[in-house]
Structure formats: structure tokens, C-alpha cells
């Protein structure tokens, strides 16, 4: 088999990869093995010889078939999601799997197992309810073997999984970069599923005609944001719009394609009206539409439209700033880079080599809003991101954004967004009855 030959070449002809795995295994206190495509062991680290007694015991008890199936499944999962897979290999016992690939094909896997995240003495018998083929006479031996399995903290497990994936990337040919698109697709799918859930909860009595109206309203909303240059918000709304479209046309991919194409047309037209260069948008559109014919399924279609709309948004932003007075552009760049410091209009005007009053006047005439308003917008966009994606407190965020006091930041945020930073975060983090977790 080609895949076997690849693995032999990789691990037998050169001792570096195995040395690296040995080092990983020792430093992480994790037994490591190299597996072939069928889930059979090709090599095991020294830690495995010492701490893998549990697995050996199971394989003597004809449990090895089920272990192998689990390993194969995990390897397939790892290329489906493009990430290392952490899961149970048998009740309570865990494994980490990272794929080995040759020319985009799965040829084997790196396996870190067995390990536990709980002290074996704390496991109760019900956790083994699916039953091992261990006769009660061998129970003591089984418990001793269980006690020899290394116990890792959660944080260490996550780190180890990342490191194992990096090693798999290094040992694959050419590497695992082919999985980047998979990750992007799955990430987007997860976001879209969450958006559908949010739409469902907000509109409990959705009918097809209400869907249509919602879709129309959301389209207006995204166009408005694009024209106002609120790039982050526009991107958020796009996910919502995708969620609505998918809910409408999931079973009719052709209709889905058409409505997505329509969306691109509407958005590009709006972008041109808002100041994007017609030729550039047309060029962008024809290039993307050519790509569209190659798009096979709904997942790729979603990724495609996100990219196209992002390109349009970025293009509009660039063209808008391109025709600005050089001094205003300089001020914009300065504000984009220094929004977190305590900026004053005087300071920004100085950067543009203008007097404060001349600068304010020029800025407003070209941008349609005052410098302070623009700065606030940049800060709010960043605040939204931080509230959503970080654990930082509102006070910390306010400080990082250059607001000397939190209550003033809260006031500004509320004025712009209609709700306080706390409510914004809470609304975003509202637990719902679903999860997109593996």
C-alpha cells in the first residue's frame, strides 16, 4: 500500500521524527503511538511501554477490535474538522488523535493515549457501565492497570493536542495546510447554526412568508452597515443572513445559489453607490462568479459568499479612503492605529499637519462625520469584538480602548449601540438549548 510505504519512509528511514515523538511523550507524560490507516500500531513510545499496560490488557481480552474502530473513526474525524480530536477511547479513558496525510490523503495518525483527566480512584463503577470484557477474577489486575494510566489536567490536554497536531503537520507531506479550508468551513457552519438558533428563538412563529420578510429586512440592514463603513457589524449580519437563507432553501441548492448570487449583486451595487470603484467591483464580481460554478455544496457556498462580501466591503473601504485628502487619510490611519490611546482632536490634527479647526472642517467635509465621532466608531467596533471574544471585564476593555473611566465608556457604548456593554455581552452569551459542540 502507498500509505504504508509513506509511513515507513517517514518513520523508519529517518530517526528524527521518532526522536521528536519520544521527546513529546516524555515531556508531556503521555504515551504516544504511530498508527497506520487501519488503526494498527506501527510504533510506541517508551512511555507507552511503561504506562500502556491498560491497553495491552484490553487487547489480550479481545477488546482490540473495538479500540481499532475507535481510532480509525477519530482519525477520519480529525480530517473532517481539521483539528486534533480529543475523546474517549473506552469508558473514562481518553485519547488524542492527529492525522498523518500524504498528498491530501489520510495515511495514518499520531495517537496519544491512554490518559485520564480524573484520578482513577474517583471514577465510580457506573462510568464503566458499557462494560469491559474483564472477568471479576481479573478485576484487581484491571484496577492496577487503570491506576498506572497518567492523569493530566485539562489545560495540559489542550496544549498537548495542539502540539501533537503540529507534529503531525510536520510529518505529513507536504503538511496539513489542506485542512485550513476545512476548519474555515466548519467554523462558519457552526456560526451559521448558532445564528439559525438565535433567529428561531427571536421569531418563534416563523412561516415561509415571514422568512421572506426577515430575509428582506436583514438584507436592508447589511447594506446600510456596508454603506456606513461599519465593517464588523456588516460581517456579523452576513452570518445572520446566511442562516435565514439556509433555513429557507436548504433542500434546494439551486435556489440557494440564486438567492446568494442576488445578494452579491445587491451588495455590490450598494457598494458602488457608496463610492466603490465600478470597474473594480465588476472585476471582483466576475472573478468570483466564475469560481461559483465550481462550488459543489452548501458548505463551500457559504464560505464563498462570505469571502466575496468581505472582498467587496474591504474594496469599498479602500476606495473610500483612496479619494480622500492625503491629510485626512493620514489622520484615519493614525486613529486606526492609536485608537486605544487617549487621543485628542489637537493631537490628530497635528498628525495631519493642520490646525485643529481646519482639520475638523476638512475631515467632516470628506468623511461626513466629525473626527471624534469616527474615533468613537473605531473604538466601539473594537469594543464589540473584545466583548464577544475575550474574557476581559468592561473596566479593562474601557481602559484598553483609551477611555479613562468606565462609566463614560458605558455611556458612549449605550448611545451608539442602544444597550450597555454588559447587556451586549450577556445577549451575546445567552445560553440556549443547543450546542454546536462535538
Amino acid at each position: 500500500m502507498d500509505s504504508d510505504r509513506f509511513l515507513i519512509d517517514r518513520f523508519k528511514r529517518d530517526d528524527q521524527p521518532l526522536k521528536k515523538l519520544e521527546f513529546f511523550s516524555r515531556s508531556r507524560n503521555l504515551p504516544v503511538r504511530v498508527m497506520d490507516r487501519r488503526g494498527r500500531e506501527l510504533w510506541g513510545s517508551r512511555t507507552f511501554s511503561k504506562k500502556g499496560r491498560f491497553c495491552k490488557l484490553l487487547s489480550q481480552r479481545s477488546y482490540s477490535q473495538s479500540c481499532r474502530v475507535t481510532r480509525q473513526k477519530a482519525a477520519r474525524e480529525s480530517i473532517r474538522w481539521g483539528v486534533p480530536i480529543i475523546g474517549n477511547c473506552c469508558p473514562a479513558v481518553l485519547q488524542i488523535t492527529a492525522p498523518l496525510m500524504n498528498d491530501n490523503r489520510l495515511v495514518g495518525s499520531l495517537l496519544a493515549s491512554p490518559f485520564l483527566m480524573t484520578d482513577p480512584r474517583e471514577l465510580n463503577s457506573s462510568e464503566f457501565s458499557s462494560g469491559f470484557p474483564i472477568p471479576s477474577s481479573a478485576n484487581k489486575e484491571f484496577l492496577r492497570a487503570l491506576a498506572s494510566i497518567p492523569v493530566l489536567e485539562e489545560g495540559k490536554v489542550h496544549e498537548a493536542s495542539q502540539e501533537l497536531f503540529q507534529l503531525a503537520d510536520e510529518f505529513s507531506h507536504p503538511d496539513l495546510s489542506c485542512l485550513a479550508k476545512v476548519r474555515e468551513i466548519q467554523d462558519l457552519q457552526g456560526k451559521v447554526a448558532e445564528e439559525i438558533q438565535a433567529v428561531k428563538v427571536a421569531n418563534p412563529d416563523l412561516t415561509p412568508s415571514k422568512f421572506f420578510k426577515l430575509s428582506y429586512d436583514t438584507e436592508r440592514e447589511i447594506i446600510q452597515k456596508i454603506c456606513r463603513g461599519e465593517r464588523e457589524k456588516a460581517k456579523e449580519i452576513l452570518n445572520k443572513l446566511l442562516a435565514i437563507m439556509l433555513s429557507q432553501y436548504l433542500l434546494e441548492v439551486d435556489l440557494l445559489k440564486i438567492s446568494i448570487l442576488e445578494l452579491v449583486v445587491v451588495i455590490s451595487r450598494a457598494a458602488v453607490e457608496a463610492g466603490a470603484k465600478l470597474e473594480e467591483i465588476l472585476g471582483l464580481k466576475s472573478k468570483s462568479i466564475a469560481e461559483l460554478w465550481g462550488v459543489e455544496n452548501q458548505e463551500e457556498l457559504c464560505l464563498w459568499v462570505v469571502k466575496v462580501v468581505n472582498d467587496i466591503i474591504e474594496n469599498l473601504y479602500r476606495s473610500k479612503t483612496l479619494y480622500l485628502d492625503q491629510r485626512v487619510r493620514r489622520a484615519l490611519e493614525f486613529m486606526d492605529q492609536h485608537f486605544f490611546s487617549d487621543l485628542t482632536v489637537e493631537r490628530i490634527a497635528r498628525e495631519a499637519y493642520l490646525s485643529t479647526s481646519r482639520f475638523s472642517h476638512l475631515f467632516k467635509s470628506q468623511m461626513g462625520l466629525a473626527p471624534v465621532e469616527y474615533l468613537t466608531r473605531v473604538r466601539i467596533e473594537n469594543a464589540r469584538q473584545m466583548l464577544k471574544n475575550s474574557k476581559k471585564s468592561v473596566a479593562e476593555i474601557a481602559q484598553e480602548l483609551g477611555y479613562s473611566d468606565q462609566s463614560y465608556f458605558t455611556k458612549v457604548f449605550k448611545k451608539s449601540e442602544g444597550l450597555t456593554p454588559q447587556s451586549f455581552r450577556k445577549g451575546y452569551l445567552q445560553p440556549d438549548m443547543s450546542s454546536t459542540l462535538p
Partner: protein
Amino acid sequence: MTIGNFGPKEARNEQLLRQVAEAVVQRDFRGVEKLVGRMAQLGKDPFSIINRGLIPGILAASQKFRTGEFFIPEILMASRAVKVGLHLLQPLIREKPKEVLARVVIGSVKFDLHDIGKNLVIIVLEGNGFEVTDLGVDVPPEGFVRAVERQRPQILAMSSLLTSTMPWMKSTIQLLRSSGQTEVKTLVGGAPVTEVYAKSIGADGYCLEATSAPVVIRNLLGMNGDQARNGF
């Protein structure tokens, strides 16, 4: 959560439930054990401990996963904390309903490996007197049909957490009907599944959330005597 309208006893109860949820988020097994054990001893309703303590806990943990604060290991441990709590409550739940209301076969559809939502539905259904057979995840249409033929359930429930796997719900219903299984009622649910979609693929019922499953099933089987809310 406002506690203004509650008496001191209810307020104490609410506080305990919040502590259960928090212990799940903190993956504090001993804490879950202690709190759930104490509530069970005080004669608290096991379902309210599940629905208002354990489930909000695992949902909050899931949310932390989405925002990047938790990774898979934390989620595995939080799920384990829930299981520890359920294990303690199981004897109480088992003794409650005296008869099996209906048999349910459940699974996540083909290519879908999410099981947290499905497992929640199972917990809620079993707790409400249904007999549930769990087919697991990544179940192909033939797998569902075989199970229906063998188990003769009144309900076949399917879960999907990805828009890309949702069409397998349709394939399963089609195969089910074309192989002559016309009696069994089909129920669908999951984050991206909407009522409109459920209707369009010919499902008999739809669940917006795990906790509504018993009501929807009772409606589908005409056990409530009132108009079905999500059984069409």
C-alpha cells in the same frame, strides 16, 4: 434572575440550583455530588434539579466553549459532572413514573457527531416516563429504519446540529415511509432545524429545545387532549 416574588424557601432553592449549575461549569464533581445529594435528600423534584441546575450548567459551559474560554477537555469534564449528578438522581427518577408512556428511538443523523443536545433530550424523556433507545451518533437512514422495525417505537426522534447534515433527516423519513413504516411518528430537532424545515421534510413534530420534547411527544400521541403545539 429576580427572586423578588419568592419566599425565603424558594430563594434558597434557587440559590442551590444556581450553585449546581456553577459546580458543573467549574467541573467540580464533588460539589455537584454534595449539592445534588443534599437537594435530593430535602425531597426536591429531580426534574427541576436537572432542568434548572444541571442543564443550565452544561449550556453555560458550552457557551464558554463557543467564546473560546473552554476547550474540548473542559467540556468533557463538565459533561462528566452532569453525569455524576444524573447518576445520583437516577434512582429517584426511576421510581417516579409508574408506567411507560411511549417508546422512543433516538439518534443523531448521518455524519453528525454531536451528542450533547441529543443526550439532554434522552435525560428529559427518560425522566418523564418514556422508554428511550439511543442509537448514538452518525446514524444512517437504514440504521434508523432497522431500529424502528425491531423496536416498534411510537416515536422516532432525530437530531442534527449542522445544516449540512440536516438533509439526512429528510432521507430518513423518506426511507422510513417507503419501507412501510407509516405508524411511527417522527420528531426532529437541533440548533439549525426550524419548524418550517421540519414541515417541509414531512416530519410529524419539531422540538425547539430539549425540555419541550415530552410535551411535543404527548401532543403527537394525543395524550394531552389539547391542540398540538409543535406536532403539526
